[in-house]
């Protein structure tokens, strides 16, 4: 018994020694990374965090400030259509961050909100507004979206990041933090060697992985601006989304209830929510039964939510010219500045209204900082 205990102790000591040395070397060679002054998951690929979910999970600590900020949430059409770097210049009075994650459904959007709230003080929460980009793909059921062979059934991409370095532990009731969120930065520093090794390995094997997976090289903005979809491609996309959503043409009300809960959670903490009903190309919405189901659920949901204080709805469904889209969902690069300006207009109007309320409350003595 003693021999085993001694060997365990020796091994642990060796492990600590080797890891400390590795940490030191990594910190010297590759200084600690951050998400930048403004978080933008679209830039994840150029950081140590590499992927959007890992970036959203690990870089969020800096959101714990009382500066007025807007956080963009949603899936890849938010990343492509509502770009942080295009919106920010329109709203200099606000910090604009994007934590949109490709492939998100509404459950994962809620998880990102939870991640942000975890690291924020109550005062910081009150200064945080969220922009949620909505479309039917966001309301995919968890069973269809997250029960895939490449993961533990039900784990979202955010869950995977929660468990990856042991910051959370798996329980029957979902992930539970092992590392208190206030120590997130320390935890990120502690796993720095893994971030460096992951980045290095991915960079070294990039071309080999692209070859094996058969992925074509990313298209340029010019190429995307020039895309015209054929009827066969449209059919393929419709078929893809039918399968992706769980081989169904009907969305479930439960997912829309999740949206309501997310909105309630944010508003009750003093935050604000801008719900953006994102457009699809006209051919897509006209031919998709899923879009019709989405519209029938979304109309009453938005009508109800926009009555609540702190909730604004932006309907962009009219911006749906087929030629403006590079595929079935994502706007072409030349269109993104228009979407950004349209959203910024709402954000500025809301900012003005907020200022007016602030001034009125201050005069009447209602506002307490």
């Amino acid at each position, binding site marked *: 018994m003693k021999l085993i205990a001694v060997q365990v102790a020796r091994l642990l000591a060796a*492990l600590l020694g080797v890891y400390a040395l590795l940490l030191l070397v990594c910190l010297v060679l590759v200084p600690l990374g951050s998400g930048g002054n403004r978080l933008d998951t679209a830039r994840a690929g150029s950081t140590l965090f590499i992927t959007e979910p890992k970036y959203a999970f690990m870089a969020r600590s800096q959101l714990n400030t009382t500066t007025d900020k807007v956080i963009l949430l949603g899936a890849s059409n938010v990343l492509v259509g509502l770009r942080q770097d295009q919106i920010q210049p329109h709203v200099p009075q606000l910090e604009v961050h994007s934590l949109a994650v490709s492939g998100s459904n509404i459950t994962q959007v809620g998880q990102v909100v939870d991640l942000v709230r975890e690291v924020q003080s109550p005062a910081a929460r009150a200064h945080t507004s969220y922009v949620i980009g909505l479309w039917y793909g966001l309301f995919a059921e968890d069973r269809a979206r997250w029960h895939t062979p490449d993961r533990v059934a039900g*784990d979202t991409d955010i869950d995977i990041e929660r468990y990856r370095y042991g910051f959370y532990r798996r329980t029957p009731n979902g992930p539970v933090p092992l590392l208190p969120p206030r120590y997130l930065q320390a935890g990120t520093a502690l796993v720095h060697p893994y971030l460096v090794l992951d980045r290095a390995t991915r960079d070294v094997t990039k071309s080999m992985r692209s070859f094996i997976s058969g992925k074509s090289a990313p298209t340029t903005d010019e190429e995307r601006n020039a895309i015209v979809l054929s009827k066969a491609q449209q059919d393929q996309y419709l078929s893809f989304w039918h399968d992706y959503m769980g081989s169904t043409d009907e969305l479930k009300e439960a997912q829309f209830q999740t949206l309501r809960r997310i909105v309630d959670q944010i508003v009750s903490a003093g935050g604000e929510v801008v719900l953006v009903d994102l457009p699809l190309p006209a051919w897509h919405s006209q031919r998709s039964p899923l879009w019709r189901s989405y519209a029938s659920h979304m109309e009453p949901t938005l009508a109800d939510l926009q009555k609540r204080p702190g909730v604004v709805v932006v309907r962009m469904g009219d911006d749906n010219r087929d030629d403006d889209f590079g595929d079935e969902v994502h706007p072409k690069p030349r269109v993104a500045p228009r979407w950004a300006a349209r959203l910024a207009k709402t954000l500025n109007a809301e900012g003005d209204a907020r200022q007016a309320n602030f001034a009125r409350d201050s005069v009447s003595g209602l506002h307490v900082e």
Partner: protein
Amino acid sequence: MTLTSLGFVAFALVVALLSNASRSIEWRSWVLLAANGAFIASYVDRPLHLLPLAGFLALCFASIEFVRRRPSTPALWATLTLIVASFILLKKFSFLSEAWLLPFPYLLMGLSYVLFRALHLLIDARQGELKEPVSPRDFFNYTCNFLTFTAGPIQRFEAYRAQRQQPLMLDESRVLRAFSRVILGFLKVAAVSAVFDNLFQTVSGRLLDAHAAAAFSLPAFALTFVTAAVCYTVYLYYNFSGYVDIVVGVGWLCGQDLPENFNHPFLARSFLDFWSRWHMTLSDWFKTYVFNPLLKVLAARFRSPKAGPYLAVAAFFITFTIMGVWHGTTSVFVIYGLILGAGASINKLWQVLAGQRLGKKRYKALAEKQIAIYVSRGLTLAYFALALTCLWVDLTQLLVIAGRLGALGAVACYFGLALAAAAGFFAWDSLAGRLARLQLGERAAFRGITAQNLGLALQILLIVTVASFFHKAPEFVYRAF
């Protein structure tokens, strides 16, 4: 409790510490009993899910004791039939009607290996080799040993009983060796096999996706298929042999010398040689309990001395077909069995005919030539890797692949892979030879306890690093068989 989880590491460590807490043989046996119970229970949510396994164990135990007391051929056949029929029912073979199956979920894992051990005891009991009764505790510890429950190795009962009666004696070097073996096992499973599994999933995903595959030219399709087959073979080997390293290493700490299951299978120069190096305890079991009795029966039926070698060809075909079919419960495994059977019998037939044609001396001399060795190794690996396709496709997918390749494409895949493997083996051996000449392992600087622990620490960090790349810990693949 998956074998690659931290939970299992902690569990194994506690069992090892408890096994060493007393020198009493009885104590160790009780610790093993408790560990086995806890391990199996960790796989189910409700006690009801263990009921079929418990019933199956009770049936096997009663049958063995019955045959031991009244050893007769009818008793053996009756109990054997009952046990195998129960096994087929519990394993839910696809040809069974739903109405025959138990209407609730239950633990299926481990049943195959319980069956192997139980049949071994049953047949030995008939042959009078089981002199003393087996106590229920020994029966449970032998058939449900937490280290071998999932997928073997299949230890013989005599070996189990002999080591059960030995006091556990550990020393510093054995403990270090055990830790090294366990960590090597984890390195194989969680790093090497995980990487190849990832590659395999990516490549096979494209192959089995009708849209993606339609875009391939025939050579590209064949190359993708061969790449997927090789990745799966490497994944399977490192996954399974890593598992064996883990259980053998933990066994050393708990006073169990489990049999080895692999002996450098990719050094095999023929298909038959391969099976004496791959999943060795399973091959031994089939040799003892299927091949040998079958050959005996055939030899009694066909007495001509000239027929002898051809009887072995037939016996190999039947044995390997059964062994292949055992791997699963659906129709594709019948094809797997037939491919294994064909491989083994063609291999035996080649040995017989080449021996007759060239004479034993010339045949042996030819087989010892370096080029023949590498070509044989290549042919062996290629056959096995392509046969394994049955383990990662269903029947429809297999037919689609076969239809796309055609006979010529399949033959090209086989010989192309064999040549590539032969060249790969040659390159690898040359590199390994150069590295061996450096004799790093022999240098004093690498042999001290501190240096060895630093080496183990590096391996652990590598395991954790690779594990952090993937979304989930790799499953132990043979648990499904």
